[in-house]
């Protein structure tokens, strides 16, 4: 399937192909249905509140009032996008909770579910505690996120983290290759502004900002879960690449020695003098011009690729390129592929 790449700052996505894309599917649920959640909570009012919160976040919710019912609903209908379990849930229907006895049913249910599916995202709700550190649990359950604050904001943040973990685990081979290749092309587009950073750094930055910075609208890259995760990360990489470029332009300039050329007689020429005055720094303009020429040289024997290149540089959309340069769909697609392959370069290692 194809994806629509957009900036994370909710700029309306634009198709590079110039035609409207089919509407995107909802966030991909792991079982192919709309997002689903299992809620194991015995307190009726709390269950109702959490159910409403989950529904508002776009989940269809199944509820269980004890751990036995919880495991049954998991076996029958799992996996879910997320499982939210009350730490103090009773074992069976009619069971009371002895507040003086150690509570283990919630933990046991979480571990039983993870035994069925290790990748299942689980959250334990322990509202009787002030901090996750105070919640007693065995070492194998230490990585399960604990929700101690009964607020929509906290739940939303935790759901996002669980879903991100799940999204990473369920990315397809094609999606992973897309991310890698988007990163490689964006890094190449940075040129010197990349400052020896590679596509891995770009991907790393995008993910860090998604994971940590969800609450920070300026530096964070919040994942709108209606958008596929691969599309989100690609958009985040693109906006970070733009940020790096802006930062570079504000702080860096080329040395004259990097631009100076010598003719056959050893005479020194400063090409800056040949650059017309304008709003852009002359040094940057020269490097870009060289780069443009070297890219066209790569495709000097490929007429269709050269036409597509010219069309892109002129700001044309797919259909306009095809129409203006007399290319049919097959010619355009094939030229685009050659452009990507050549400009991305080949990586011989698995890295």
């Amino acid at each position: 399937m194809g994806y629509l790449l957009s900036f994370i700052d909710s700029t309306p996505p634009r198709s590079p192909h110039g035609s409207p894309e089919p509407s995107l599917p909802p966030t991909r649920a792991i079982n192919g249905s709309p997002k689903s959640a299992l809620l194991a909570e015995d307190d009726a009012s709390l269950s109702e509140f959490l159910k409403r919160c989950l529904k508002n976040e776009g989940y269809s919710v199944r509820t269980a009032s004890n751990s036995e019912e919880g495991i049954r609903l998991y076996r029958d209908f799992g996996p879910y996008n997320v499982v939210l379990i009350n730490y103090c849930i009773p074992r069976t229907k009619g069971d009371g909770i002895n507040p003086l006895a150690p509570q283990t049913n919630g933990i046991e249910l979480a571990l039983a579910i993870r035994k069925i599916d290790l990748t299942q995202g689980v959250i334990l709700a322990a509202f009787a505690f002030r901090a996750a550190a105070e919640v007693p649990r065995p070492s194998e359950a230490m990585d399960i996120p604990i929700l101690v604050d009964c607020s929509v904001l906290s739940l939303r943040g935790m759901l996002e983290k669980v879903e991100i973990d799940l999204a990473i685990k369920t990315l397809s081979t094609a999606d992973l290759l897309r991310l890698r290749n988007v990163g490689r092309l964006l890094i190449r587009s940075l040129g010197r502004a990349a400052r020896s950073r590679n596509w891995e750094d770009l991907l790393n930055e995008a993910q860090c900002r998604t994971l940590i910075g969800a609450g920070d609208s300026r530096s964070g890259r919040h994942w709108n879960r209606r958008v596929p995760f691969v599309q989100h990360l690609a958009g985040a990489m693109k906006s970070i690449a733009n940020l790096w470029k802006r930062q570079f332009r504000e702080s860096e300039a080329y040395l004259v020695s990097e631009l100076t050329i010598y003719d056959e007689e050893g005479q020194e020429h400063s090409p800056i003098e040949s650059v017309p005055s304008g709003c852009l720094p002359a040094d940057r303009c020269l490097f870009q011009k060289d780069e443009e020429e070297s890219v066209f040289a790569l495709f000097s024997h490929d007429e269709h690729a050269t036409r597509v290149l010219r069309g892109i540089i002129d700001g044309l959309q797919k259909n306009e390129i095809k129409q203006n340069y007399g290319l049919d769909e097959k010619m355009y697609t094939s030229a685009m592929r050659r452009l990507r392959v050549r400009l991305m370069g080949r990586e011989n290692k698995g890295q």
Partner: protein
Amino acid sequence: MSNNKRSDEAIERVLNYLADSILYESDESTLDEAYHTDADPQSSAEYTRSKLGDVSEALHGVNKRLSSLGHTIDSNWQYSHGEYQSTCVNCGSTVTFRTGSHHSQGTALKTRCAARYESVTSKRQAFRK
């Protein structure tokens, strides 16, 4: 001026356009194309997944450590120069996380939450009296 501007943005525009186009390709086409750009697409894909996993793992380790020391970290991390910084809402101790190296440091990772520890101690003392 327009020529200047055009030259400056030309390659950037081409590469951005090509990057966008990757997301429109079908899975089959993406995999097929990968054989031209990667020696071993399958291991390249898994390497990418492992890179994504590394970030999650590193952050998870930091959160686990903070949690075990009783800190409650402000969810609004501040970002500056490749580094995230936040503080414990109870004791004010700090933690930083570098996005590039995944290196974390700060007093919150070394010491228990003083505010929480004092609160528990005073409760115990009151109970004994």
